[in-house]
């Protein structure tokens, strides 16, 4: 595969070229975090910045280096750009005894999603598979209107464990372009992942990367693989729900989990939604929206008579076993990509990997003690 070596100016040139394809969305400093949004200029990229992430912890940090991709992941994933938090499905209008229904049209501006981390790219493909199996057309339509540019991770963070889920630190899924940034005076290795990506790179007259350059980039990624802050033993994930549903670790967890739903909001693969129906005040116009929902809310599992999952421990169990185990049965892959967001943004600092480890260990001493009669 053709590989090109870019310096900062050439990277800027690449971004300018991508602008011709559509609005470029990329990482930038926004209200105290590195977030994804429209890039007004190449200078918006978070040069010299990184962040500290830990359980319930996020702080911007200066790196003292000119790298632009030294951060890990933004609080909110790329999910909103393809699967908006709120989306109109149809409008209905009452006319006498009857009514009419008008399906919503998906807005399809061409966009360039610039700077997906490998775990985020995996999450995008995971959601793509979920939503195409569910026959939810707007997702596929938006994806087709988007360019996808991924950037490998050479500096994983404290909450990262993509290596254990085979989603990173190198780019492993389909995209248009993939980049690696490495070195104190950053250089960029650029490769195409699609036909249109190949054509675009060729058109820029970039210098070809030498075998030596490519080896250096590979070495940086191999180092990254050994620097994951968290780990997860996937051999323990099959049949998690049926094997471990009564494990006391879930009860212990319930004392900490407030069922706030942050983890599901920041999770890049969580797809659950609710359908909301609205009517105008005069009762003549109605509409339906799909809105993100969370399996941590009580009403999520409501059916007449009660709730299937009335306790927070049951809801955390549902979420965790779905991500790590049931998802595998549903879609032949994990529902977790190892991005660590749920750990960072849990107000209680609950660590998915630690809770999973607790489940794989034997329960602590029994709460029933026996003694022989004297």
């Amino acid at each position, binding site marked *: 595969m053709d590989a090109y070596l870019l310096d900062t100016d050439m990277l800027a040139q690449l971004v300018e070229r991508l602008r011709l394809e559509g609005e470029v969305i990329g990482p930038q400093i926004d209200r105290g975090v590195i977030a994804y949004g429209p890039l007004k200029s190449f200078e918006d990229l978070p040069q010299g910045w990184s962040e500290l992430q830990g359980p319930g912890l996020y702080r911007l940090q200066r790196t003292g280096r000119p790298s632009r991709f030294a951060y890990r992941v933004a609080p909110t994933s790329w999910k909103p750009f393809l699967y908006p938090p709120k989306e109109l*499905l*149809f409008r*209905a209008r*009452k006319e006498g*005894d*009857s*009514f*009419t*229904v008008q*399906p*919503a049209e998906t807005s399809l501006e061409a966009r360039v999603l610039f700077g997906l981390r490998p775990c985020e790219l995996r999450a995008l493909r995971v959601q793509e598979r*979920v*939503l195409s*199996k*569910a*026959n*939810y*057309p707007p997702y596929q339509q938006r994806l087709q209107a988007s360019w996808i540019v991924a950037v490998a991770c050479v500096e994983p963070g404290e909450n990262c464990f993509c290596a254990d889920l085979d989603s990173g630190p190198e780019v492993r899924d389909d995209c248009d372009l993939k980049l690696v940034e490495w070195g104190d005076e950053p250089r960029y290795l650029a490769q195409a992942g699609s036909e249109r990506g190949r054509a675009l790179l060729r058109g820029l007259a970039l210098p070809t990367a030498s075998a030596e350059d490519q080896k250096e980039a590979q070495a940086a990624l191999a180092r990254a693989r050994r620097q994951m802050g968290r780990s997860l033993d996937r051999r323990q994930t099959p049949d998690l*729900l*049926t094997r471990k*549903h*009564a494990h006391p670790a879930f009860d212990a967890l319930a004392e900490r989990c407030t069922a706030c739903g942050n983890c599901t909001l920041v999770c890049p693969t969580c*797809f*659950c*939604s*609710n*359908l*909301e*129906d*609205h*009517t105008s005040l005069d*009762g003549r116009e*109605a509409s*339906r929206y*799909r809105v993100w*929902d969370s*399996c941590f809310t009580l009403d*999520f*599992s*409501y*059916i*007449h008579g009660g709730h*299937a*999952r*009335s*306790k927070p*421990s*049951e809801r955390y*169990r*549902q979420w965790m076993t*779905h991500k790590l185990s*049931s998802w595998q*049965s*549903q879609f032949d892959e994990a529902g977790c990509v190892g991005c660590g967001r749920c750990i960072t943004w849990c107000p209680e600092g609950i660590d998915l990997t630690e809770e999973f480890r607790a489940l794989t260990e034997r329960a602590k001493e029994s709460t029933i003690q026996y003694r022989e009669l004297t």
Partner: protein
Amino acid sequence: MNPESVLTPTLWKLLEVQEETGDCFSLRLEPPEGYRFEPGQFNMLYAFGKGEAPISISSDPDRSDQLVHSIRAVGVVTQELQRLRAGEQVGVRGPFGQPWPLEEAEGKEVLIIAGGIGLAPLRPLIYRILAQRQRFKQVYLLYGARTPKDLLYPDQLELWQEGIEVRTTVDRSMAGWTGQVGVVPRLITAEGFDPANTLAFVCGPEVMMNFCVEELQNRGVAGSSIFVSLERNMKCAQGYCGHCQMGPYFICRDGPVFRYERIQPFLNIRGG
């Protein structure tokens, strides 16, 4: 269904609203040309501005001129549906879900076991069996409800006796009731079917199904020969809203009808 309409209901004309026994009512609708369903499937019914509810189909699958839904008015949407009058419109998406696998019952005895309004999703199956009666050996309908006045489709229960063995029971008797009193599993105990050559289709409240399955298994019916129909919070019916998941299954897509041995590991997980 065509791709544009998956997220949008199609409008059907309401032919009639029928009061049923207990707190149930039926909507008789006019389906569009070419609409087909299999016994056990459901539709999402949309009441203008109020929302959708998953409702099983209760009519004869071999009649294309009308489609019937029997409904209990327990929520905002179903209560609104109850207020509709003939000539008004109902939004419909469907049919969804896996049907009762009747072809597996060919040449066998059939137990249709229903509790309460659980008879509604089984009625299309009964129609189909009656239409093809010679394909099956002895067929039993074992039906229980809370009280005699909660027994659904009382006139048909009489009529069906001509083609199949119909047994009814109630949890609580009332003045004038001379029929059986007791829970549905007792009806299973009383019948002389051959467990090795029997298929059971069960629908009712989950606890009732649990007790029935236990009794069936005590009698020697294998978990692979028992089918149950489950109910969960279905919103989208397509598998993207995630609400109806149970373990690895989307009840809307992988169910609502499940082979018991397949769903069994997840049925008894508390809060599963």
